C-alpha cells in the first residue's frame, strides 16, 4: 500500500504480508481449539447448532485468509474455474494452514455440483474426543467453514458439510449458477 494512503492510519497497514516465521506447537493449537469447542458447546443445545457455530468461526478465519493466500501464492491472480479453485484449496490453503496437502480431492459420481475433500486425520481433531451420544459431531466443521468462506468470497458460492467418512470428508456442494457458468465457459 502506498504510504500516502496509509499515513497517519495504523502502522499495521505498512507491514509486509509474508509468511510468519514463528511456529507454534500442534499441541498448543489443539488445546486452544478444544477450548473453543467447549465454549461453543456451552452455548448451544444440539450437535447441529454446535457445528454451525464452529462453521461461523471458520468463516471468519477463511475470510481473512483468502486475500493473503491469493496474494502470496498466486500473485493476486484469482481463479475462475471450479477445478482450479478446488486445487488451490487442496494444495495451497491446506499447506498454509496445516503444513501439508489434503489427502484426496474427488468428484461425486452422479452429481456434477458435488466434490469431496478427504483427510484421514484432521489436525483440528487431534485433541478432540467425541462421546458416543454425540457421535455425529465432527469438529472439522471449523475447517468446513474456512473452505466455505474461501469458495464464497472467490465467487463460487457453495455449501460445505462435514462427515465421518474415510476419516473426515468435506462435502462441497456448489450452487447451480456456478456449474452453469463453468459449462458456459467450457463451451466457448
Amino acid at each position: 500500500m502506498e504510504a500516502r494512503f496509509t499515513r497517519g492510519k495504523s502502522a499495521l497497514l505498512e507491514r509486509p504480508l509474508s509468511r510468519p516465521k514463528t511456529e507454534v506447537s500442534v499441541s498448543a493449537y489443539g488445546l486452544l481449539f478444544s477450548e473453543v469447542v467447549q465454549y461453543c458447546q456451552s452455548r448451544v443445545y444440539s450437535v447441529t447448532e454446535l457445528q454451525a457455530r464452529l462453521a461461523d468461526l471458520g468463516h471468519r478465519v477463511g475470510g481473512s485468509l483468502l486475500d493473503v493466500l491469493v496474494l502470496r501464492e498466486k500473485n493476486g491472480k484469482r481463479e475462475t474455474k471450479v477445478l482450479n479453485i478446488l486445487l488451490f484449496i487442496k494444495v495451497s490453503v491446506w499447506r498454509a494452514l496445516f503444513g501439508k496437502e489434503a489427502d484426496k480431492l474427488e468428484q461425486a459420481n452422479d452429481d456434477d455440483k458435488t466434490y469431496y475433500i478427504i483427510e484421514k486425520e484432521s489436525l483440528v481433531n487431534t485433541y478432540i474426543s467425541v462421546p458416543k451420544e454425540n457421535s455425529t459431531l465432527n469438529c472439522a466443521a471449523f475447517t468446513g467453514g474456512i473452505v466455505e468462506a474461501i469458495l464464497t468470497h472467490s465467487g463460487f458460492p457453495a455449501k460445505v458439510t462435514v462427515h465421518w467418512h474415510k476419516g473426515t470428508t468435506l462435502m462441497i456442494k456448489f450452487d447451480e449458477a456456478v456449474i452453469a457458468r463453468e459449462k458456459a465457459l467450457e463451451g466457448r
Partner: protein
Amino acid sequence: MSRQANRATDNKKMNSELFTLTYGALVTQLCKDYENDEEVNKQLDKMGYNIGVRLIEDFLARSSIGRCQDFRETADVIAKVAFKMYLGVTPSVTNWSPAGDEFSLILENNPLVDFVELPDNHNTLVYSNLLCGVLRGALEMVQMAVDVKFVQDTLRGDNVTEIRMKFIKRIEENLPAGDE
C-alpha cells in the same frame, strides 16, 4: 510403552497463522456474546486456566524437566522452555522484586496478536488474557498459586508486552478424607 519412539513424533510444529486467526475468531465471538470487556477478560482467563491445566501434563511429558527448586528456576523454565516449545518465542525474565517473589516476562513479539488491532471502543480489553489463565492453571497443577497479569500490551500502545507474575503461596496437597 515406548517413550523413545514417541519423542520424535511428539514435537510437531505448525505455522502460527491458523493459531492467530483462530484466536482472533474466538475473541471476536466472545466480544459479540458478552458485549462487555470485563466479562470477556474473565472468560479468556477462565478458558486459559482450563487450557493450562491440560497443558502442564503435555509439557511435563515432553520435556524432561524435573521439579523446580525455587521460583527463579520456575521463571527460567517458563520463559526458555515452555514458551519456546508452545509459542515459538522466548520472553526475557526481568524486574525481579527484592523478595524474589515477583518477576516480569517481556515478550517482544506475541504470536497471538499478529496483525491485530484493537478498535477504539474496546479500550479495556486484555486481548491476550488467555495467556494469564494458562500460566495460572499450569502452575496451580504443580502446587504453586500465582497471580498473573498484563502490565504492558503492544495492542494498547506500549512498546513491548509485559506479563507480571507474583508467587502467592505453595498449595498443600490435600489427601482425600479417609486416607492415611
